[in-house]
């Protein structure tokens, strides 16, 4: 105990003496003077400060007032070009996982299966390209699906389509429509992710490379949009155009080849799965990877 702690303790004992005999029970006609009241309050604060000052930092005793755990040094996680490229590769692997899963489950056939195979091949090429860029910058490529996006979007979405008996989730009534809806959302988000990366990347040459991949993801989304909504390829929502060219509805369709004038960073809603007893289907909002979904340089793959 150092000198300041001794002074605290001395002050505390004086305060205890000063408050002895006070009638704390009758608040209205209290004999506790205003001065004593403040002194008592001060005692509480000083005593707490005293205990805190005396508390050990490495003790393994039962937790009590004044014992605070040692602070853990937090990991420094800057958003570097390498972290962004690793995240891009992980997102490509999320898409690869989805297309491989729907093909393995036999959910697509005919033209839809042909397009899915092409999209899968494109995502494999994109994953190789972003992994190669990561390594050129001196980083370690992350050749796995993004773990967070996999757990919050991909796995729940696929469970809604294929069903999961153990969790009591029935399979969807229309797997082809649901796979197309999921693929549309996923491809839209993939394009948006590269768009979002452009101002975040430090190297302008990498920005060009990133948006070069992003525009291909956008084309995938547009192809699916054109299949889901062939009658209205380009949305009129948000445009100042003559009424005769506006859509005759107040609610935008779920998909378009071209949904907006500019690429957006907005979440993409997707409705999947069988309807519940109230006739309601589950909606997920897919979003571009946020700062807590990036594959920082310290994150290891398995």
């Amino acid at each position, binding site marked *: 105990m150092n000198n300041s702690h001794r002074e605290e303790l001395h002050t505390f004992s004086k305060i205890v003496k000063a408050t002895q005999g006070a009638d704390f029970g009758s608040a209205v006609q209290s004999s506790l003077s205003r001065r004593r009241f403040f002194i008592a309050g001060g005692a509480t604060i000083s005593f707490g400060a005293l205990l805190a000052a005396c508390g050990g930092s490495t003790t393994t005793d039962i937790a009590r007032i004044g014992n605070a755990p040692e602070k853990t040094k937090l990991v420094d996680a800057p958003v570097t070009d390498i972290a962004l490229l690793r995240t891009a590769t992980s997102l490509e692997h999320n898409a690869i996982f989805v297309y491989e899963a729907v093909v393995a489950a036999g959910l697509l056939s005919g033209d839809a299966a042909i397009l899915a195979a092409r999209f899968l091949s494109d995502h494999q090429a994109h994953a190789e390209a972003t992994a190669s860029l990561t390594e050129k910058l001196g980083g370690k490529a992350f050749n796995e699906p993004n773990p967070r996006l996999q757990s919050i979007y991909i796995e729940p979405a696929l469970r809604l389509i294929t069903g999961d008996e153990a969790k009591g989730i029935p399979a969807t009534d229309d797997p082809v429509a649901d796979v197309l809806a999921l693929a549309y959302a996923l491809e839209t988000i993939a394009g948006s992710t590269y768009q979002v990366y452009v101002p975040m990347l430090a190297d302008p040459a990498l920005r*060009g490379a990133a948006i070069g991949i992003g525009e291909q993801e956008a*084309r995938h989304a547009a192809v699916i949009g*054109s299949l889901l909504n062939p009658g209205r390829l380009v949305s009129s929502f948000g445009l100042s155009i003559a009424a005769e060219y506006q859509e005759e509805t107040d609610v935008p369709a779920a998909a378009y080849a071209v949904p907006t004038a500019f690429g957006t960073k907005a979440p993409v809603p997707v409705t999947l799965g069988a309807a519940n007893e109230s006739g309601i289907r589950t909606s997920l909002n897919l979003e571009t990877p946020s700062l807590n979904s990036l594959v920082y340089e310290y994150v290891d793959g398995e």
Partner: protein
Amino acid sequence: MTAPKIISASPVRPTEADTELLASVQASALAIRDLYHAAIAAGAGGDHVASLVAIAAHHDAYAQAISSLIGRAAPQARDSKLFTDNKANFGADTTAVALAAHTLENDLVAAHTEVVGSLEGTEGAALVASMIIIEARHVVALAAIAGKSPVSDTDLFLVTPEAATADAQTTTTIA
């Protein structure tokens, strides 16, 4: 984890060189808007006329957004050579218009991708990137309007032609 820091020393606002590039992008956007308007006025579009009108409005929006970014440096006038060179393809025939526009939008995607790789300021790069995402979607919509199939004519929908990319790299009529 500490609050993540974005590591970039790039300027936010357009530099002088950026402004020149963005001015050129605006002139192209206005020329292409006017080409769509010419086709619509000539009677092209058929069942998809509303889509052509909307695409024209997108290019108008790009020109306005660039004005907001570079202010008085914006030319506010179309690239007259680009307009004149392509005007003959933007008549009343919907399929011909869709195919001509498909080529132009692919050229825009390639040229603007080069522009994004050249711009120093992040605001300009972000804006042009958001245009590219939609220009790529325009390509797909126009291929569909031209009656092409994404299964049998896949590359028309999904691939930026090498010629467009090569043109964009050497520089060129469109920015």
